[in-house]
Protein backbone atom coordinates (compact mmCIF):
# COMPACT_ATOMS: atom_id res chain seq x y z
CA UNK A 1 0.00 0.00 0.00
CA UNK A 2 1.09 3.53 -0.71
CA UNK A 3 2.76 5.42 2.13
CA UNK A 4 1.10 8.63 3.20
CA UNK A 5 3.88 9.62 5.56
CA UNK A 6 7.54 8.72 5.53
CA UNK A 7 10.08 9.54 8.23
CA UNK A 8 13.75 9.23 7.25
CA UNK A 9 16.67 9.42 9.69
CA UNK A 10 14.77 11.84 11.86
CA UNK A 11 16.85 13.46 14.59
CA UNK A 12 15.64 16.00 17.10
CA UNK A 13 18.00 17.43 19.70
CA UNK A 14 17.43 19.97 22.41
CA UNK A 15 19.94 22.11 24.18
CA UNK A 16 20.53 20.70 27.62
CA UNK A 17 22.85 23.07 29.45
CA UNK A 18 25.85 23.39 27.16
CA UNK A 19 25.52 20.08 25.29
CA UNK A 20 22.88 18.78 22.91
CA UNK A 21 20.48 16.10 24.03
CA UNK A 22 19.21 13.78 21.30
CA UNK A 23 15.53 13.10 21.94
CA UNK A 24 14.90 11.35 18.65
CA UNK A 25 17.69 9.19 17.34
CA UNK A 26 17.57 8.53 13.60
CA UNK A 27 13.95 7.44 13.44
CA UNK A 28 12.75 5.72 10.27
CA UNK A 29 9.07 5.08 9.83
CA UNK A 30 6.68 4.45 6.95
CA UNK A 31 2.98 4.91 7.49
CA UNK A 32 0.61 3.57 4.86
CA UNK A 33 -2.47 5.48 3.86
CA UNK A 34 -5.47 4.75 6.06
CA UNK A 35 -3.51 3.10 8.83
CA UNK A 36 -4.46 3.57 12.47
CA UNK A 37 -1.10 3.76 14.18
CA UNK A 38 -0.60 3.98 17.89
CA UNK A 39 2.61 5.04 19.56
CA UNK A 40 3.42 3.85 23.04
CA UNK A 41 6.42 4.20 25.30
CA UNK A 42 7.38 5.40 28.70
CA UNK A 43 7.24 9.00 29.74
CA UNK A 44 10.00 11.05 28.22
CA UNK A 45 10.67 8.53 25.50
CA UNK A 46 10.11 11.06 22.76
CA UNK A 47 6.60 10.16 21.60
CA UNK A 48 5.22 13.68 21.56
CA UNK A 49 8.39 15.02 20.04
CA UNK A 50 8.04 12.54 17.18
CA UNK A 51 4.39 13.49 16.69
CA UNK A 52 5.19 17.21 16.55
CA UNK A 53 7.83 16.62 13.89
CA UNK A 54 5.52 14.47 11.80
CA UNK A 55 2.64 16.89 12.11
CA UNK A 56 4.76 19.88 11.08
CA UNK A 57 4.34 21.68 14.37
CA UNK A 58 8.08 21.56 14.90
CA UNK A 59 11.19 21.46 12.75
CA UNK A 60 13.53 18.47 12.98
CA UNK A 61 17.22 18.92 13.70
CA UNK A 62 18.02 16.64 10.78
CA UNK A 63 16.36 14.00 8.69
CA UNK A 64 13.36 14.26 6.48
CA UNK A 65 9.62 13.94 6.54
CA UNK A 66 7.69 13.31 3.35
CA UNK A 67 3.96 13.50 3.05
CA UNK A 68 2.19 12.16 -0.02
CA UNK A 69 5.69 11.30 -1.20
CA UNK A 70 6.76 14.92 -1.11
CA UNK A 71 9.49 16.23 1.16
CA UNK A 72 8.34 18.92 3.57
CA UNK A 73 11.84 20.33 3.96
CA UNK A 74 11.57 23.60 2.14
CA UNK A 75 8.23 24.71 3.55
CA UNK A 76 8.08 28.06 5.27
CA UNK A 77 5.88 28.76 8.28
CA UNK A 78 3.03 30.10 6.20
CA UNK A 79 3.04 27.11 3.88
CA UNK A 80 3.18 24.78 6.85
CA UNK A 81 0.14 26.45 8.41
CA UNK A 82 -1.78 26.14 5.18
CA UNK A 83 -0.71 22.54 4.80
CA UNK A 84 -1.87 21.75 8.33
CA UNK A 85 -5.18 23.44 7.71
CA UNK A 86 -5.86 21.49 4.55
CA UNK A 87 -4.44 18.07 5.38
CA UNK A 88 -4.21 17.50 9.12
CA UNK A 89 -6.53 17.20 12.05
CA UNK A 90 -5.35 17.53 15.63
CA UNK A 91 -6.61 16.19 18.90
CA UNK A 92 -4.65 17.48 21.86
CA UNK A 93 -4.39 16.02 25.31
CA UNK A 94 -6.18 18.79 27.20
CA UNK A 95 -9.23 20.57 26.09
CA UNK A 96 -8.20 22.62 23.12
CA UNK A 97 -11.52 24.23 22.33
CA UNK A 98 -11.98 27.96 21.97
CA UNK A 99 -14.00 29.04 24.96
CA UNK A 100 -15.66 32.00 23.24
CA UNK A 101 -17.10 29.71 20.58
CA UNK A 102 -19.91 27.24 21.08
CA UNK A 103 -19.57 23.62 20.01
CA UNK A 104 -20.81 24.20 16.50
CA UNK A 105 -18.64 27.26 15.98
CA UNK A 106 -15.57 25.46 17.30
CA UNK A 107 -16.06 22.77 14.71
CA UNK A 108 -16.85 25.02 11.78
CA UNK A 109 -13.98 27.46 12.37
CA UNK A 110 -11.40 25.65 10.24
CA UNK A 111 -13.98 25.17 7.51
CA UNK A 112 -14.51 28.93 7.39
CA UNK A 113 -10.76 29.44 7.21
CA UNK A 114 -10.70 27.05 4.27
CA UNK A 115 -13.23 29.16 2.45
CA UNK A 116 -16.27 26.93 2.79
CA UNK A 117 -19.54 28.86 2.94
CA UNK A 118 -21.06 29.38 6.35
CA UNK A 119 -24.13 27.34 5.50
CA UNK A 120 -22.15 24.42 4.15
CA UNK A 121 -19.75 24.63 7.10
CA UNK A 122 -22.60 24.42 9.58
CA UNK A 123 -24.12 21.48 7.75
CA UNK A 124 -20.85 19.59 7.71
CA UNK A 125 -20.19 20.40 11.36
CA UNK A 126 -23.63 19.26 12.50
CA UNK A 127 -23.30 16.07 10.56
CA UNK A 128 -19.91 15.32 12.09
CA UNK A 129 -21.08 16.18 15.60
CA UNK A 130 -24.03 13.83 15.23
CA UNK A 131 -21.73 11.13 13.99
CA UNK A 132 -19.69 11.29 17.21
CA UNK A 133 -22.88 11.31 19.23
CA UNK A 134 -23.09 14.89 20.46
CA UNK A 135 -25.39 16.41 17.90
CA UNK A 136 -27.58 17.75 20.67
CA UNK A 137 -24.82 19.89 22.23
CA UNK A 138 -24.16 22.23 19.35
CA UNK A 139 -25.22 25.40 21.15
CA UNK A 140 -23.32 24.72 24.36
CA UNK A 141 -20.06 26.40 25.22
CA UNK A 142 -16.98 24.33 26.12
CA UNK A 143 -17.38 25.27 29.78
CA UNK A 144 -20.86 23.76 29.72
CA UNK A 145 -19.93 20.24 28.62
CA UNK A 146 -17.93 17.38 30.13
CA UNK A 147 -14.30 16.51 29.37
CA UNK A 148 -15.32 13.53 27.29
CA UNK A 149 -17.77 15.61 25.32
CA UNK A 150 -15.07 18.24 24.83
CA UNK A 151 -12.75 15.61 23.40
CA UNK A 152 -15.46 14.45 21.05
CA UNK A 153 -15.91 18.04 19.90
CA UNK A 154 -12.15 18.14 19.37
CA UNK A 155 -12.42 14.93 17.34
CA UNK A 156 -15.21 16.49 15.28
CA UNK A 157 -13.10 19.55 14.68
CA UNK A 158 -10.16 17.35 13.65
CA UNK A 159 -12.12 15.31 11.12
CA UNK A 160 -14.78 17.69 9.84
CA UNK A 161 -12.57 18.94 7.03
CA UNK A 162 -11.87 15.35 5.88
CA UNK A 163 -8.14 15.55 6.57
CA UNK A 164 -5.65 13.00 5.32
CA UNK A 165 -4.09 12.44 8.71
CA UNK A 166 -5.37 12.96 12.24
CA UNK A 167 -2.78 13.36 14.97
CA UNK A 168 -3.82 12.65 18.54
CA UNK A 169 -1.54 13.05 21.54
CA UNK A 170 -3.01 11.10 24.44
CA UNK A 171 -6.60 12.04 23.63
CA UNK A 172 -7.90 10.05 26.60
CA UNK A 173 -5.32 11.04 29.19
CA UNK A 174 -7.67 13.19 31.20
CA UNK A 175 -10.78 11.06 30.85
CA UNK A 176 -12.25 8.28 32.96
CA UNK A 177 -12.47 4.76 31.59
CA UNK A 178 -16.02 4.87 30.35
CA UNK A 179 -15.49 8.16 28.57
CA UNK A 180 -12.13 7.07 27.21
CA UNK A 181 -13.77 3.99 25.81
CA UNK A 182 -16.32 6.14 23.96
CA UNK A 183 -13.60 8.36 22.50
CA UNK A 184 -11.66 5.31 21.33
CA UNK A 185 -14.77 3.90 19.69
CA UNK A 186 -15.14 7.13 17.77
CA UNK A 187 -11.53 7.10 16.65
CA UNK A 188 -11.84 3.52 15.52
CA UNK A 189 -14.98 4.40 13.61
CA UNK A 190 -13.24 7.28 11.90
CA UNK A 191 -10.44 5.03 10.86
CA UNK A 192 -12.74 2.35 9.53
CA UNK A 193 -15.51 4.41 7.99
CA UNK A 194 -13.69 7.49 6.76
CA UNK A 195 -10.39 5.72 6.06
CA UNK A 196 -8.51 8.58 7.63
CA UNK A 197 -4.95 7.87 8.69
CA UNK A 198 -4.69 8.21 12.47
CA UNK A 199 -1.50 8.58 14.46
CA UNK A 200 -2.24 8.37 18.15
CA UNK A 201 -0.07 8.43 21.24
CA UNK A 202 -1.38 6.60 24.26
CA UNK A 203 -0.21 5.26 27.56
CA UNK A 204 -2.78 2.51 27.71
CA UNK A 205 -1.97 -0.68 25.95
CA UNK A 206 -5.61 -1.67 25.65
CA UNK A 207 -6.34 1.45 23.67
CA UNK A 208 -3.20 1.02 21.62
CA UNK A 209 -4.47 -2.38 20.65
CA UNK A 210 -7.52 -0.85 18.98
CA UNK A 211 -5.13 0.39 16.30
CA UNK A 212 -3.83 -1.46 13.25
CA UNK A 213 -0.25 -1.15 14.32
CA UNK A 214 1.69 -0.30 17.45
CA UNK A 215 5.16 1.14 17.66
CA UNK A 216 6.97 1.48 20.93
CA UNK A 217 9.46 4.25 21.45
CA UNK A 218 12.20 4.14 24.01
CA UNK A 219 14.90 6.73 24.45
CA UNK A 220 14.37 8.15 21.04
CA UNK A 221 14.50 4.83 19.22
CA UNK A 222 11.80 2.57 17.86
CA UNK A 223 11.94 -0.41 20.17
CA UNK A 224 9.25 -2.50 18.51
CA UNK A 225 6.89 -2.26 15.58
CA UNK A 226 4.01 -4.68 15.36
CA UNK A 227 0.90 -5.07 13.29
CA UNK A 228 -2.21 -6.12 15.16
CA UNK A 229 -3.91 -9.15 13.74
CA UNK A 230 -7.60 -8.76 13.39
Amino acid at each position, binding site marked *: MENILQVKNLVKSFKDGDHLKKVLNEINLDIPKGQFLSIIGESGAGKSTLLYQMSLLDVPTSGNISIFGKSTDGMNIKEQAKFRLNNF*GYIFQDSSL*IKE*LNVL*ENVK*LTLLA*KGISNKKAEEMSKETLSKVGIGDLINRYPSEISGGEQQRVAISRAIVGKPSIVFADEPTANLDHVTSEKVMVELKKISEELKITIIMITHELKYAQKADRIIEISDGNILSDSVIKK
Partner: protein
Amino acid sequence: MFNVVRTAWFLATKYFSKFSKWTSALIIFVIALTFLNLVVVSGLLVGLIEGSVLGIKELRTGEVFITPTEQNQHIKKYNELFSVLDNNKNIKGYAPRYVSDARLYKDYKTSIYRRAGEVDVDIYATVTGIDIEKEKDFFELDEKIIEGRWFVDTDVNSVILGNRLTASVDEELFTDERVLGDVKPGEIIEIQFENNTSAPQKFQVIGIINSKQPEYDYGIIIPSRELRGILGQSALLGPDNIGVRISNNVEPAVVIDSIKASTDSTLINVRSAEDSIGKYLGNIRKTFVLLSNALGTISIVVVTVMLFIVIFISAITKQRQIGILKGIGISPLTLKLSYMFLSFMYTFVGVVIGVLILVFLLIPYFDANPIDFPFSDGILFVTLPGLITKIFLLFVMSIFAGFLPAHLITRRNTLNTILGR
Protein backbone atom coordinates in the same frame (compact mmCIF):
# COMPACT_ATOMS: atom_id res chain seq x y z
CA MET B 1 -7.53 36.90 1.72
CA PHE B 2 -11.31 36.95 1.87
CA ASN B 3 -11.25 33.81 4.00
CA VAL B 4 -8.72 35.40 6.31
CA VAL B 5 -10.88 38.49 6.80
CA ARG B 6 -14.03 36.45 7.18
CA THR B 7 -12.56 34.09 9.76
CA ALA B 8 -10.96 36.99 11.63
CA TRP B 9 -14.25 38.87 11.70
CA PHE B 10 -16.05 35.73 12.91
CA LEU B 11 -13.55 35.31 15.76
CA ALA B 12 -13.66 39.00 16.64
CA THR B 13 -17.43 39.10 16.93
CA LYS B 14 -17.27 36.08 19.25
CA TYR B 15 -14.51 37.60 21.37
CA PHE B 16 -16.47 40.83 21.52
CA SER B 17 -19.72 39.23 22.61
CA LYS B 18 -18.00 36.96 25.13
CA PHE B 19 -15.75 39.58 26.67
CA SER B 20 -16.48 40.46 30.28
CA LYS B 21 -19.47 42.80 30.17
CA TRP B 22 -18.06 45.19 32.71
CA THR B 23 -14.69 45.38 31.07
CA SER B 24 -16.34 46.01 27.72
CA ALA B 25 -18.56 48.70 29.16
CA LEU B 26 -15.55 50.36 30.75
CA ILE B 27 -13.48 50.26 27.58
CA ILE B 28 -16.34 51.66 25.52
CA PHE B 29 -16.97 54.33 28.13
CA VAL B 30 -13.34 55.42 28.09
CA ILE B 31 -13.30 55.52 24.28
CA ALA B 32 -16.50 57.54 24.20
CA LEU B 33 -15.02 59.94 26.74
CA THR B 34 -11.83 60.23 24.75
CA PHE B 35 -13.83 61.04 21.67
CA LEU B 36 -15.81 63.69 23.53
CA ASN B 37 -12.62 65.03 25.03
CA LEU B 38 -11.15 65.35 21.55
CA VAL B 39 -14.20 67.05 20.14
CA VAL B 40 -15.59 69.05 23.03
CA VAL B 41 -12.43 70.52 24.54
CA SER B 42 -11.23 71.81 21.21
CA GLY B 43 -14.78 72.67 20.23
CA LEU B 44 -15.27 74.85 23.27
CA LEU B 45 -11.85 76.50 23.10
CA VAL B 46 -12.21 77.29 19.44
CA GLY B 47 -15.87 78.00 20.08
CA LEU B 48 -14.91 80.91 22.30
CA ILE B 49 -13.17 82.52 19.38
CA GLU B 50 -15.74 81.44 16.84
CA GLY B 51 -18.46 82.75 19.09
CA SER B 52 -16.62 86.01 19.34
CA VAL B 53 -16.09 86.23 15.58
CA LEU B 54 -19.72 85.37 15.06
CA GLY B 55 -20.76 88.07 17.52
CA ILE B 56 -18.63 90.70 15.86
CA LYS B 57 -19.97 89.74 12.46
CA GLU B 58 -23.60 89.58 13.48
CA LEU B 59 -23.61 92.76 15.54
CA ARG B 60 -21.04 95.04 13.98
CA THR B 61 -19.12 94.23 10.85
CA GLY B 62 -21.58 92.19 8.85
CA GLU B 63 -20.00 90.06 6.14
CA VAL B 64 -18.29 93.08 4.67
CA PHE B 65 -16.89 95.92 6.76
CA ILE B 66 -16.03 99.32 5.36
CA THR B 67 -13.65 101.66 7.19
CA PRO B 68 -11.70 104.76 6.19
CA THR B 69 -8.13 104.28 5.09
CA GLU B 70 -5.43 105.23 7.57
CA GLN B 71 -4.95 108.70 6.14
CA ASN B 72 -8.62 109.46 6.62
CA GLN B 73 -10.44 109.81 9.93
CA HIS B 74 -13.85 109.32 8.43
CA ILE B 75 -15.31 107.78 5.32
CA LYS B 76 -15.26 110.51 2.69
CA LYS B 77 -17.61 110.78 -0.27
CA TYR B 78 -20.04 108.65 1.62
CA ASN B 79 -23.06 109.65 -0.39
CA GLU B 80 -21.51 108.11 -3.47
CA LEU B 81 -20.60 105.03 -1.44
CA PHE B 82 -24.15 104.73 -0.15
CA SER B 83 -25.54 104.74 -3.66
CA VAL B 84 -23.01 102.07 -4.69
CA LEU B 85 -24.19 99.96 -1.77
CA ASP B 86 -27.84 100.66 -2.49
CA ASN B 87 -27.45 99.54 -6.09
CA ASN B 88 -25.63 96.28 -5.36
CA LYS B 89 -28.14 93.43 -5.63
CA ASN B 90 -26.05 91.16 -3.44
CA ILE B 91 -26.28 93.54 -0.49
CA LYS B 92 -29.22 93.04 1.83
CA GLY B 93 -28.51 96.18 3.82
CA TYR B 94 -25.89 98.24 5.58
CA ALA B 95 -25.54 100.43 8.63
CA PRO B 96 -23.21 103.43 8.88
CA ARG B 97 -21.94 104.49 12.32
CA TYR B 98 -20.55 107.80 13.47
CA VAL B 99 -18.14 107.54 16.33
CA SER B 100 -17.19 110.31 18.69
CA ASP B 101 -15.79 110.68 22.18
CA ALA B 102 -17.62 112.18 25.10
CA ARG B 103 -17.43 112.80 28.79
CA LEU B 104 -20.31 111.48 30.86
CA TYR B 105 -21.55 112.74 34.20
CA LYS B 106 -24.14 111.30 36.43
CA ASP B 107 -25.70 111.98 39.79
CA TYR B 108 -22.55 113.45 41.16
CA LYS B 109 -23.90 114.45 44.52
CA THR B 110 -24.98 111.01 45.70
CA SER B 111 -22.94 108.54 43.75
CA ILE B 112 -21.11 105.99 45.83
CA TYR B 113 -18.81 105.51 42.90
CA ARG B 114 -17.09 108.76 43.51
CA ARG B 115 -13.45 108.29 44.43
CA ALA B 116 -11.92 109.96 47.48
CA GLY B 117 -11.52 113.66 46.87
CA GLU B 118 -13.69 113.70 43.81
CA VAL B 119 -16.69 115.92 43.72
CA ASP B 120 -18.42 114.21 40.84
CA VAL B 121 -18.39 111.04 38.78
CA ASP B 122 -17.30 111.49 35.24
CA ILE B 123 -16.00 109.05 32.70
CA TYR B 124 -14.90 109.11 29.12
CA ALA B 125 -16.73 106.94 26.71
CA THR B 126 -17.29 106.33 23.05
CA VAL B 127 -20.45 107.65 21.49
CA THR B 128 -21.76 105.80 18.49
CA GLY B 129 -24.32 107.44 16.32
CA ILE B 130 -26.43 104.86 14.57
CA ASP B 131 -29.30 104.45 12.19
CA ILE B 132 -31.86 102.96 14.54
CA GLU B 133 -33.81 101.17 11.82
CA LYS B 134 -30.84 99.69 10.04
CA GLU B 135 -29.16 98.44 13.20
CA LYS B 136 -32.40 96.83 14.13
CA ASP B 137 -33.14 95.32 10.73
CA PHE B 138 -29.69 94.15 9.75
CA PHE B 139 -27.80 93.68 13.01
CA GLU B 140 -30.60 93.04 15.49
CA LEU B 141 -28.85 95.23 18.01
CA ASP B 142 -32.23 95.87 19.62
CA GLU B 143 -32.22 92.28 20.87
CA LYS B 144 -29.18 93.00 23.00
CA ILE B 145 -31.04 95.47 25.20
CA ILE B 146 -31.06 93.94 28.67
CA GLU B 147 -33.00 96.68 30.42
CA GLY B 148 -35.32 99.35 29.08
CA ARG B 149 -35.98 99.52 25.35
CA TRP B 150 -34.62 100.22 21.89
CA PHE B 151 -35.05 103.62 20.19
CA VAL B 152 -38.20 104.75 18.49
CA ASP B 153 -38.39 107.47 15.87
CA THR B 154 -39.82 110.02 18.24
CA ASP B 155 -37.06 109.74 20.84
CA VAL B 156 -35.31 113.02 21.64
CA ASN B 157 -32.35 113.46 23.92
CA SER B 158 -32.29 109.73 24.50
CA VAL B 159 -29.34 107.39 24.69
CA ILE B 160 -28.68 103.74 25.27
CA LEU B 161 -25.95 103.05 27.77
CA GLY B 162 -23.40 100.22 27.56
CA ASN B 163 -23.74 97.86 30.48
CA ARG B 164 -20.05 98.10 31.22
CA LEU B 165 -20.55 101.69 32.27
CA THR B 166 -23.10 100.76 34.90
CA ALA B 167 -22.35 99.18 38.24
CA SER B 168 -24.15 95.99 37.41
CA VAL B 169 -20.98 94.42 36.11
CA ASP B 170 -18.68 92.36 38.28
CA GLU B 171 -16.53 94.99 39.95
CA GLU B 172 -13.90 92.50 40.99
CA LEU B 173 -12.86 92.09 37.41
CA PHE B 174 -12.90 95.71 36.47
CA THR B 175 -11.63 97.58 39.49
CA ASP B 176 -9.65 99.98 37.37
CA GLU B 177 -12.57 100.91 35.22
CA ARG B 178 -14.74 103.81 36.01
CA VAL B 179 -18.42 103.25 35.96
CA LEU B 180 -21.26 105.68 36.14
CA GLY B 181 -23.04 103.89 38.92
CA ASP B 182 -26.13 101.78 38.98
CA VAL B 183 -27.90 103.62 36.17
CA LYS B 184 -31.46 102.50 35.44
CA PRO B 185 -33.50 103.26 32.34
CA GLY B 186 -35.30 106.56 32.85
CA GLU B 187 -32.44 108.21 34.68
CA ILE B 188 -30.71 111.28 33.38
CA ILE B 189 -27.01 111.53 32.58
CA GLU B 190 -25.07 114.47 31.27
CA ILE B 191 -22.90 114.27 28.22
CA GLN B 192 -20.28 116.64 26.98
CA PHE B 193 -19.32 115.78 23.42
CA GLU B 194 -15.86 116.05 21.99
CA ASN B 195 -15.13 119.35 20.26
CA ASN B 196 -18.24 120.81 21.78
CA THR B 197 -17.48 123.70 24.06
CA SER B 198 -20.95 124.33 25.35
CA ALA B 199 -22.09 122.99 28.71
CA PRO B 200 -22.90 119.26 29.12
CA GLN B 201 -26.32 118.36 27.87
CA LYS B 202 -28.85 116.22 29.69
CA PHE B 203 -29.92 112.89 28.16
CA GLN B 204 -32.31 110.26 29.31
CA VAL B 205 -31.06 106.69 29.43
CA ILE B 206 -33.79 104.64 27.75
CA GLY B 207 -32.02 101.27 27.74
CA ILE B 208 -28.95 99.33 28.75
CA ILE B 209 -27.19 97.22 26.13
CA ASN B 210 -25.12 94.11 26.61
CA SER B 211 -23.83 93.10 23.19
CA LYS B 212 -20.37 91.83 24.18
CA GLN B 213 -19.04 94.31 21.65
CA PRO B 214 -16.77 96.72 23.54
CA GLU B 215 -17.63 99.52 21.10
CA TYR B 216 -21.18 99.47 22.44
CA ASP B 217 -20.85 98.03 25.93
CA TYR B 218 -18.24 100.57 27.00
CA GLY B 219 -19.99 103.49 25.36
CA ILE B 220 -23.30 105.05 24.59
CA ILE B 221 -25.46 104.73 21.54
CA ILE B 222 -27.43 107.59 20.14
CA PRO B 223 -29.45 107.95 16.92
CA SER B 224 -27.17 109.45 14.32
CA ARG B 225 -29.73 112.10 13.40
CA GLU B 226 -29.42 113.43 16.96
CA LEU B 227 -25.66 113.18 16.99
CA ARG B 228 -25.51 115.07 13.74
CA GLY B 229 -27.70 117.74 15.23
CA ILE B 230 -25.49 118.09 18.26
CA LEU B 231 -22.14 117.95 16.54
CA GLY B 232 -23.19 119.84 13.46
CA GLN B 233 -20.48 120.10 10.89
CA SER B 234 -18.09 117.53 12.33
CA ALA B 235 -20.48 114.61 11.94
CA LEU B 236 -20.90 115.43 8.31
CA LEU B 237 -17.30 114.44 7.80
CA GLY B 238 -18.64 110.96 7.32
CA PRO B 239 -19.27 107.66 9.02
CA ASP B 240 -16.45 105.91 10.83
CA ASN B 241 -17.48 102.48 9.72
CA ILE B 242 -20.19 100.72 7.76
CA GLY B 243 -21.34 97.19 8.39
CA VAL B 244 -22.70 95.47 5.29
CA ARG B 245 -24.97 92.43 5.22
CA ILE B 246 -24.94 90.39 2.03
CA SER B 247 -27.25 87.76 0.59
CA ASN B 248 -26.89 84.27 1.94
CA ASN B 249 -25.51 82.49 -1.07
CA VAL B 250 -23.00 85.13 -2.10
CA GLU B 251 -19.30 85.02 -1.31
CA PRO B 252 -18.12 88.14 0.55
CA ALA B 253 -15.17 88.34 -1.83
CA VAL B 254 -17.53 88.86 -4.76
CA VAL B 255 -19.26 91.75 -3.03
CA ILE B 256 -15.97 93.23 -1.86
CA ASP B 257 -14.58 93.18 -5.38
CA SER B 258 -17.62 94.82 -6.83
CA ILE B 259 -17.62 97.57 -4.16
CA LYS B 260 -13.93 98.16 -4.71
CA ALA B 261 -14.44 98.38 -8.43
CA SER B 262 -16.75 101.33 -8.11
CA THR B 263 -15.13 103.26 -5.24
CA ASP B 264 -11.88 105.03 -4.47
CA SER B 265 -9.48 102.68 -2.72
CA THR B 266 -7.48 105.58 -1.29
CA LEU B 267 -10.52 106.56 0.75
CA ILE B 268 -11.91 103.31 2.10
CA ASN B 269 -10.92 99.82 3.10
CA VAL B 270 -13.42 97.13 2.15
CA ARG B 271 -12.76 93.88 3.96
CA SER B 272 -14.44 90.66 4.98
CA ALA B 273 -15.45 90.31 8.62
CA GLU B 274 -12.60 87.90 9.24
CA ASP B 275 -10.00 90.20 7.69
CA SER B 276 -11.23 93.21 9.56
CA ILE B 277 -11.22 91.40 12.88
CA GLY B 278 -7.55 91.02 12.29
CA LYS B 279 -4.76 88.78 13.42
CA TYR B 280 -5.43 89.08 17.11
CA LEU B 281 -8.34 86.63 17.33
CA GLY B 282 -6.69 84.46 14.72
CA ASN B 283 -3.67 84.12 16.95
CA ILE B 284 -5.73 83.26 19.99
CA ARG B 285 -7.54 80.76 17.87
CA LYS B 286 -4.27 79.20 16.76
CA THR B 287 -3.14 78.99 20.36
CA PHE B 288 -6.37 77.33 21.39
CA VAL B 289 -6.21 74.87 18.54
CA LEU B 290 -2.64 74.05 19.51
CA LEU B 291 -3.64 73.64 23.13
CA SER B 292 -6.57 71.40 22.32
CA ASN B 293 -4.44 69.36 19.93
CA ALA B 294 -1.92 68.84 22.70
CA LEU B 295 -4.66 67.74 25.08
CA GLY B 296 -6.18 65.59 22.37
CA THR B 297 -2.86 63.91 21.61
CA ILE B 298 -2.45 63.03 25.25
CA SER B 299 -5.90 61.51 25.44
CA ILE B 300 -5.32 59.56 22.23
CA VAL B 301 -2.09 58.19 23.63
CA VAL B 302 -3.81 57.28 26.88
CA VAL B 303 -6.65 55.48 25.16
CA THR B 304 -4.23 53.69 22.83
CA VAL B 305 -2.23 52.44 25.77
CA MET B 306 -5.40 51.37 27.55
CA LEU B 307 -6.72 49.41 24.58
CA PHE B 308 -3.27 47.98 23.94
CA ILE B 309 -3.05 46.72 27.51
CA VAL B 310 -6.55 45.28 27.48
CA ILE B 311 -5.96 43.45 24.21
CA PHE B 312 -2.48 42.39 25.23
CA ILE B 313 -3.65 40.91 28.51
CA SER B 314 -6.57 39.25 26.80
CA ALA B 315 -4.25 37.76 24.18
CA ILE B 316 -1.69 36.68 26.78
CA THR B 317 -4.29 34.81 28.78
CA LYS B 318 -5.34 33.16 25.54
CA GLN B 319 -1.82 32.25 24.51
CA ARG B 320 -2.44 28.54 24.48
CA GLN B 321 -5.65 29.03 22.57
CA ILE B 322 -3.82 31.15 20.04
CA GLY B 323 -1.18 28.43 19.77
CA ILE B 324 -3.86 25.81 19.17
CA LEU B 325 -5.53 27.95 16.53
CA LYS B 326 -2.21 28.35 14.79
CA GLY B 327 -1.61 24.63 15.23
CA ILE B 328 -4.82 23.64 13.50
CA GLY B 329 -3.90 25.90 10.63
CA ILE B 330 -5.48 29.28 11.32
CA SER B 331 -2.99 31.78 9.91
CA PRO B 332 -1.29 34.27 12.22
CA LEU B 333 -2.63 37.07 10.03
CA THR B 334 -6.18 35.87 10.73
CA LEU B 335 -5.50 36.01 14.46
CA LYS B 336 -3.90 39.44 14.28
CA LEU B 337 -6.81 40.74 12.25
CA SER B 338 -9.27 39.25 14.70
CA TYR B 339 -7.77 41.28 17.53
CA MET B 340 -7.60 44.31 15.32
CA PHE B 341 -11.28 43.93 14.54
CA LEU B 342 -12.03 43.46 18.23
CA SER B 343 -10.30 46.70 19.05
CA PHE B 344 -12.04 48.29 16.09
CA MET B 345 -15.43 47.19 17.42
CA TYR B 346 -14.78 48.76 20.79
CA THR B 347 -13.73 51.96 19.11
CA PHE B 348 -16.72 51.88 16.82
CA VAL B 349 -19.22 51.46 19.64
CA GLY B 350 -17.40 54.06 21.73
CA VAL B 351 -17.38 56.56 18.90
CA VAL B 352 -21.02 55.94 18.07
CA ILE B 353 -21.99 56.55 21.69
CA GLY B 354 -19.77 59.62 21.72
CA VAL B 355 -21.37 60.98 18.55
CA LEU B 356 -24.84 60.34 19.94
CA ILE B 357 -24.00 62.19 23.15
CA LEU B 358 -22.50 64.99 21.10
CA VAL B 359 -25.33 65.38 18.64
CA PHE B 360 -28.28 64.80 20.93
CA LEU B 361 -26.97 66.19 24.18
CA LEU B 362 -23.99 68.49 24.03
CA ILE B 363 -24.58 70.44 20.84
CA PRO B 364 -28.23 71.22 21.71
CA TYR B 365 -27.17 72.05 25.26
CA PHE B 366 -24.49 74.53 24.29
CA ASP B 367 -26.72 76.00 21.62
CA ALA B 368 -29.37 76.65 24.23
CA ASN B 369 -26.91 77.70 26.92
CA PRO B 370 -23.93 79.45 25.37
CA ILE B 371 -21.07 79.90 27.77
CA ASP B 372 -21.22 83.47 29.03
CA PHE B 373 -17.78 84.96 28.45
CA PRO B 374 -17.09 88.67 28.74
CA PHE B 375 -16.09 88.97 25.11
CA SER B 376 -18.33 86.36 23.50
CA ASP B 377 -20.99 83.75 23.82
CA GLY B 378 -18.93 80.55 23.76
CA ILE B 379 -20.41 78.02 21.39
CA LEU B 380 -19.47 74.40 20.82
CA PHE B 381 -17.67 74.67 17.53
CA VAL B 382 -17.74 71.36 15.68
CA THR B 383 -17.07 70.97 11.99
CA LEU B 384 -17.67 67.82 10.00
CA PRO B 385 -14.10 67.64 8.65
CA GLY B 386 -12.79 68.12 12.18
CA LEU B 387 -15.07 65.40 13.45
CA ILE B 388 -14.08 63.01 10.69
CA THR B 389 -10.39 63.65 11.35
CA LYS B 390 -10.82 62.80 15.01
CA ILE B 391 -12.84 59.67 14.33
CA PHE B 392 -10.23 58.66 11.80
CA LEU B 393 -7.47 59.19 14.36
CA LEU B 394 -9.31 57.01 16.87
CA PHE B 395 -9.68 54.24 14.33
CA VAL B 396 -6.03 54.40 13.37
CA MET B 397 -5.30 54.21 17.08
CA SER B 398 -7.56 51.17 17.44
CA ILE B 399 -5.88 49.36 14.57
CA PHE B 400 -2.54 49.92 16.20
CA ALA B 401 -3.77 48.96 19.67
CA GLY B 402 -5.31 45.74 18.38
CA PHE B 403 -2.78 44.61 15.85
CA LEU B 404 0.41 45.15 17.79
CA PRO B 405 -0.34 43.07 20.91
CA ALA B 406 -1.73 40.27 18.74
CA HIS B 407 1.41 40.45 16.63
CA LEU B 408 3.58 40.13 19.73
CA ILE B 409 1.68 37.04 20.87
CA THR B 410 1.18 35.29 17.54
CA ARG B 411 4.82 35.47 16.56
CA ARG B 412 5.73 33.23 19.47
CA ASN B 413 6.54 29.63 18.63
CA THR B 414 3.34 27.70 17.99
CA LEU B 415 4.33 24.53 19.75
CA ASN B 416 5.67 26.37 22.77
CA THR B 417 2.45 28.26 23.23
CA ILE B 418 0.34 25.11 22.84
CA LEU B 419 2.44 23.39 25.48
CA GLY B 420 2.55 26.50 27.62
CA ARG B 421 6.32 26.79 27.72
